């Protein structure tokens, strides 16, 4: 009787909660890292602030946070190098988006075809494997010679950089399709197109989205290279131009803007993934 009363009180009284245990985890196992990341960011900011405050680094190399903030407001207000911040930003976003749309609309179907068809794989495997490890800066001169210094060469350069991860991930998506799932669909009477539409495509979708996320990341990191080509607009151009005048604060502003947008895109892709493939990792 007393035991029963005690066990009853043990679950109801929070102060007397039993010790909750679980199996020892390995690796991260879903542990929360957000607060640590936030603390790291604050620490880095503090280090920057202190380093500039005590002039540990010459201001030409490392501007103070205040200078960067002031310069950011100045660029927002007056623009930079004869164009407003919005014109720089929209020029860069237009290039990245055009390239992403082209890379996805070519890379996804081609990757799927290469995962499904011997001829597609055989024909396209060599050129893609050959070009994709090349750094975009290496073929940049060719782009200029072949395509001139207009928008085309910039968008083609970005497209080339984004295409490979998208195409390769679509292939990997097809490869990850279990044969039992295909057989199940066939024995339910699926035709070729139905098999592709209802089984192959959704099965490959998680991998395709991962490829797009990587592709857009690669796009941002190639942007500065693309805007080296005689551009007068663009965040990458802004950074390059500022560096010629040793305007490190403007360089910092540009880097900050690219980082913020790349982060926002990556986060948006994650949301898209959670919405489109909620089953990922659950089966």
């Amino acid at each position, binding site marked *: 009787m007393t035991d029963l009363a005690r066990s009853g009180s043990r679950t109801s009284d929070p102060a007397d909660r039993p010790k909750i245990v679980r199996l020892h985890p390995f690796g991260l196992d879903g542990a929360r890292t957000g607060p640590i990341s936030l603390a790291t960011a604050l620490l880095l900011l503090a280090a920057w602030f202190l380093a500039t405050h005590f002039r540990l680094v010459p201001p030409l190399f490392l501007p103070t946070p205040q200078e960067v903030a002031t310069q950011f407001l100045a660029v927002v207000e007056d623009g930079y190098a004869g164009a407003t911040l919005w014109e720089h930003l929209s020029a860069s976003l237009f290039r990245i988006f055009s390239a992403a749309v082209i890379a996805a609309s070519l890379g996804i179907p081609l990757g799927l075809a290469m995962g499904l068809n011997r001829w597609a794989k055989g024909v396209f495997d060599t050129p893609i494997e050959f070009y994709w490890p090349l750094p975009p800066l290496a073929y940049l001169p060719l782009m200029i010679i072949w395509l001139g210094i207009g928008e085309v060469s910039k968008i083609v350069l970005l497209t080339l950089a984004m295409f490979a991860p998208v195409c390769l991930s679509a292939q990997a998506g097809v490869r990850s399709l*279990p044969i039992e*799932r295909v*057989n199940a669909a*066939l*024995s*339910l*009477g*699926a035709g070729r197109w139905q098999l592709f539409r209802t089984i192959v495509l*959704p099965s490959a979708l998680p991998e395709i989205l991962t490829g797009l996320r990587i592709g857009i990341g690669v796009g941002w990191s190639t942007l500065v290279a693309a805007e080296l080509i005689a551009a007068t607009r663009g965040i990458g151009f802004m950074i390059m131009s500022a560096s010629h005048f040793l305007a490190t604060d403007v360089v910092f502003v540009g880097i900050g803007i690219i980082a913020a947008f790349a982060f926002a895109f990556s986060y948006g892709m994650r949301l898209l993934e959670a919405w489109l493939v909620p089953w990922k990792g659950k*089966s």
Partner: protein
Amino acid sequence: MLQVRNASVFFSARDGRVVHALDRASLDIDANSIVVALGASGCGKSTLLNAIAGFLPLSEGSITLDGQPVASPGADRGVVFQKDTLLPWSSVADNVALGLRFAGVPGRERRERAEELLGLVGLESFADAFPHELSGGMRQRVGIARALATDPKILLMDEPFGALDSLTREQMQELLIDVWARTGKRIFFITHSIEEALFLGTTVVVMSPRPGRIVAHFDVDFVRRFAAERDVRAILSAPEFADLYDEIRSLVHRPQAEAESRRMVLQ
């Protein structure tokens, strides 16, 4: 009637040797019967099922369903796999109705039929759940409902309860008998459990490995008795059940024992 005649299958092993997976197997599956293929791993029972399903061509022999030769997979043969093959992005009802969707049945009709079949397997309240929210046994029930949705002439079941715990497995066996008694579907069922074979089969074919072949046929009536009386314990404790169990057990183990004795002679 489903007829398998002198079906042989030869595979090529990775080292280039030829594996004789199925050797001149012949089998009839009549209306209203449950034929259970029983044997140790490597005896060719899954090979036989894959050939009937149309996933695998035969090296020799023939398979016909109501006189039509079987050449490729089709909705006239419903398959329930050992591993669950439900689509994780579709609801339970959509999974069940997948075959109807392929057949071009309109949405509302699909939904009605799916709900009807989910009722048959006791999952009527899970129509809008997703596969990852279900237990292993429930997923297999969805798999059975899905295979029945296109109203196939035969149900092919490849160790469907092999991955389930023994309690769930017993429930699933009884459920399958109910489904069979109500729909009258003929069933080809694969297992390596002698007890399951005797409990479910109207015919039990015992297979032996290397090369995979059918070594014995037994006509059994425990499943009909269960459908009529619903008394598991009476069946499992019946002396005829125990006798058949022992007889089949010795058959299943014999080739192994022979092989081992041969090895001992060689040494």
